[in-house]
């Protein structure tokens, strides 16, 4: 089993598009793990139909048992988020779940244990099949929930359980460099950094690169949306060189790539001038995967069309 993570720092840099192209190349022995759990769109890119779903419990929720509450108000005084409201006289206290940060201060403070815990659903985990014939594991958080590091771990564990011994797991990471990204990168055999050839794209990719280097992960980069501004392309290459990250290739900013997605295809099937760039970058990535040498193969890359 080999795990490849696609990350970028900046959102909208092309992570999911490149991850989907890799998945198309790696089928049928591939499982797609969409770890962008705050805004998952791998299922859209791959045309998924959900086959299994299960609730995701982040941690305990809190509520007040009105049968035993004496109305002392210590819970309200202990809440830093003004999530506890009272009604009536004598007051009856209740926790507004949308405002509750689940810190547990009221639970600790209540002298008669009238604050009780319950299993709060924070999201849902899905296993779906895609039109590429591969499985995708994805998830959705309930708005306002912030437990994405743990949910990323659950998505990856489920993908590992589905994947066979010689399968490739493609991890589509969220943007940023925080908890859910670290949970996406950790333990991966290869990280593909997607650098959008723009000022913010380069800066965010550089911050991500520093994180990856600090974790000692094997890394290769793709510059996306190249050719719009030669100066930006050069800056992206210079940044990667300074960070010591090899470049697999550059994807042009080409209308055919956009229309491929609009018609539900991956970049692997693009039949245009852009195909050469896509195939050449994916071939470089394949070479690196081969050098990891655990016997897994992403796939044979089709011969280029003349």
């Amino acid at each position: 089993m080999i795990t490849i993570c696609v990350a970028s720092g900046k959102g909208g840099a092309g992570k999911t598009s490149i991850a989907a192209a890799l998945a198309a190349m790696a089928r049928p022995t591939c499982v797609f793990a969409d770890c962008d759990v705050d805004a998952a769109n791998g299922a859209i890119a791959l045309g998924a139909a959900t086959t299994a779903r299960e609730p995701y419990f982040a941690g305990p929720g809190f509520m007040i048992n009105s049968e035993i509450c004496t109305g002392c108000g210590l819970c309200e005084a202990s809440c830093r988020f003004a999530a506890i409201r009272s009604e009536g006289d004598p007051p009856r206290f209740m926790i507004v779940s949308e405002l509750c940060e689940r810190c547990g201060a009221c639970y600790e403070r209540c002298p008669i244990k009238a604050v009780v815990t319950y299993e709060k659903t924070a999201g849902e985990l899905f296993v779906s099949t895609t039109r590429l014939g591969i499985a995708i594991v994805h998830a959705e958080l309930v708005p306002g929930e912030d437990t994405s590091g743990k949910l990323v771990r659950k998505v990856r564990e489920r993908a590992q359980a589905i994947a066979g011994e010689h399968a490739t797991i493609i991890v589509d990471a969220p943007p940023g460099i925080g908890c859910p990204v670290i949970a996406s990168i950790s333990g991966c055999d290869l990280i593909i950094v997607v650098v959008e050839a723009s000022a913010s794209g380069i800066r965010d990719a550089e911050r991500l690169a520093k994180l990856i280097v600090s974790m000692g992960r094997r890394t290769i980069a793709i510059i996306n949306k190249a050719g719009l501004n030669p100066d930006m392309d050069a800056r992206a290459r210079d940044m990667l060189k300074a960070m010591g990250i090899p470049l697999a290739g550059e994807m042009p900013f080409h209308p055919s790539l956009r229309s491929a997605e609009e018609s539900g295809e991956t970049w692997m099937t693009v039949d245009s001038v852009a195909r050469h760039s896509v195939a050449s970058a994916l071939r470089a990535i394949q070479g690196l995967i081969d050098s990891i040498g655990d016997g897994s193969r992403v796939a044979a890359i089709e011969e280029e069309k003349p």
Partner: protein
Amino acid sequence: MKYALPTDDGKTVSKVFGRAKNFAIYDTEDSSYAILENEGADSEHGAGTGAAAFLATMGVGSVVVPEVGPKAAETLEQAGIGIESLGTGISLDDAIAGIRAR
């Protein structure tokens, strides 16, 4: 000195640090060996820093692990715990034999 090695299955060194299910603790003083559950493995967030703090309270002097996240590394450093890296997929027995052979 006490060494901590993350492990999910109790047989091989885990690829990850903070969300490993257990820590194997090997003490070179008396050659004792124990597997302790990492209660923070399922944390919503802060798994790495939590694991580092836990190992600090256990008096661990060094962790032996394929990778450590940036915040966990900072916490380990502040606690005076060394970080030694090793490759992935290595058995606990081999890793501990490596420590013992020093």
